[in-house]
């Protein structure tokens, strides 16, 4: 039984990692990363490591996300790193986080 739950969560983790790497929007990549940490904490509970699970849940899903969002907010006007982006991508200045120019993965 535990083996099936572990298998399910492992597949979920790999899929979320792929989604975080290949997602078009950077903001959603960050949120997927925090969800990834939360499910990894669940996995740590299943392999009898509750100390690690507490730390991973607190750090991965709370503090890391906050710091990533801060970094994203501070660099929101940067021309995104992409081959196919328009040359003057920096002119698309965005005010809010949701209006970050979405960069297709390179």
């Amino acid at each position: 039984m535990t083996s099936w739950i572990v298998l399910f969560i492992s597949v979920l983790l790999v899929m979320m990692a792929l989604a975080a790497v290949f997602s078009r929007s950077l903001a959603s990549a960050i949120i997927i990363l925090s969800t990834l940490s939360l499910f990894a904490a669940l996995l740590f509970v299943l392999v009898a490591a509750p100390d690690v699970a507490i730390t991973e849940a607190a750090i991965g899903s709370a503090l890391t996300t906050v710091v990533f969002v801060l970094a994203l907010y501070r660099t929101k006007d940067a021309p995104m790193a992409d081959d196919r982006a328009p040359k003057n991508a920096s002119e698309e200045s965005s005010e809010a986080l949701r209006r970050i120019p979405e960069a297709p993965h390179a």
Partner: protein
Amino acid sequence: MRKLAGLLLVGGFVFYLAALLPGLFVSSTPSGLASAGADILASAEAVSGSANVVTAVVVQYRGLDTLGEVTVLFASALGVAILASGLRDNVFGSMFAKDDGGFVLQYGGRFLMPFIVLAGVYIIVHGHLSPGGGFPGGVLIATALFILILTGEAVRMPHRLLSVLEGAAGLGFIGLGALGFLDADASFLANTLPKGQFMTLLSAGVIPFIYAMVGIKVASELTSLVAVLTEAPRNGQPADPAAVGLATAGLASASQTAAGQSKEAGHS
């Protein structure tokens, strides 16, 4: 081209991991553990008196290493404090303070915060009895303080107090470790205090005290780490030299000149 080279490198790494894989299964014998873990499990009660063996490993068997890890954390906090003194605008001036999240969020955060701190303190204090200890508890306390900032409260982080706490906790760690020299076979971080009744709160000798020091240090370090980033200076000038905590006058002026050249793009 770049993608192809990346795929080739990753393919080589996958091949390496696949070659490594059979070796991983050799060490786990059918009876259970490799020798070091089994020895520690057998001797943990007598040597450390801590019911949580992970805590015993972190504080006693690998105590010196934990001191090193905390130092690494301090080094990264130092680096962040120095680097953040040259950032441009005040995030919480523009990001959160403009709309303060509303009544429910603000009072919810204010209501929730002491309970999260309480849970963190509980986790630190009971680190030798139940899952937890200094590292998870310290992280939890840092999270609680940060929830208060996120809800838009105008919190001024007591940076001076945080750095004093951090230094005092580090000194406390070393001082409690130096108690080990009182032992017959004098060694740093030896567990000299009376071990008490196994599986009660006042047991395991020096371990709960050292782990509490680690908890205070981790909590203050992580809090100042994130707070330095959020309370970043406006227009390249440190809002408050004390806010950065570690920035000297020379660093502040250097960061001003660095921010002055901020828009020099490095196009090749």
